[in-house]
C-alpha cells in the first residue's frame, strides 16, 4: 500500500514505540500521511513548507533603502493616482 507523503516539522522531541524512530524538535522530514496525521493530532508535528530556513529581513539594510524610497516618493506622485483608477 502506498501513501501520500507529507513534509512535517517536528514540534518537540519524541519517539515512536512502534517504529522505533526518534524525532528531534525542529527536524524537518517527509512522513507517510497516516503517520503525519497522527503526529499532528497529538501536537507533535505540523505541516512544513519546502523552504529549509525561514526568510528573515536584514535589519541593517532596510533603513537606508527606506530613506532612499521616501526621498524618491516625495518627488513624484504615487503610482496609480495619475490614472485615477486601479487595475
Amino acid at each position, binding site marked *: *500500500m502506498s*501513501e501520500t507523503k507529507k513534509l512535517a516539522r517536528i514540534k518537540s*522531541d*519524541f*519517539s*515512536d*514505540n*512502534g*517504529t522505533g524512530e526518534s524525532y528531534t524538535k525542529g527536524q524537518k522530514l517527509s512522513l*507517510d*500521511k*497516516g*503517520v503525519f*496525521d*497522527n*503526529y499532528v*493530532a*497529538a*501536537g*507533535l508535528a505540523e505541516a512544513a513548507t519546502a523552504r529549509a530556513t525561514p526568510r528573515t529581513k536584514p535589519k541593517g539594510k532596510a533603513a537606508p533603502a527606506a530613506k532612499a524610497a521616501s526621498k524618491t516618493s516625495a518627488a513624484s506622485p504615487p503610482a496609480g493616482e495619475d490614472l485615477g483608477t486601479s487595475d
Partner: protein
Amino acid sequence: MVSSTAAGTTLAISAAAPATFDAAGYGALTFTEIGGVEKLGALGADTETVAFQPLKGPKEKHKGPTDYGTLNPPIAHDKSDAGQTLLRTASGPTNHALYSFKATMPNGDKRFFQARVFGYPEVIEGAASIVMATPRIEICTVIVKDDAV
C-alpha cells in the same frame, strides 16, 4: 488450539476513522503504538440480561443492550512517547472525538474498535514504584476481529 502468554501484545491508536467498520477498513488506517502498556484487561462485549419471571415456568432471560466495555490499561508514563501523547490528547475533557484502536496479540490476531478516552490520570505511588498512568478508554463500537491466518 494452542494457548499462549500475552507477552508481545500491543495497543495502538489512530486519530482517523475507518472508511468501513470491518477488518479492511480498520486495516487501511495507520496506527501509532502506545508504549509502556502493562496489561489491557478484558476486551469484549457484555450484554445486559433482561429477565422475566412468569407465574408458571422458569425465569426467562433475554438479551438487552450491549456494552462493548472499558479498558483501563496501566501504562508506564512516558511524556516522549508518541502513542501516549495522542492518548493524552484524546483524553482532554472537551475532546469528544472518537479514536480508532488496534490491539494486536502475539499470534497476529487483531482487535479493532473505536473509543473515547475519558481520562489519563497519572499515578504516583511510593519511591520504589514507576510513575504510571491509567487512562479510561470507553469502547463505543462493535469490536472487529481480524484473526491471523
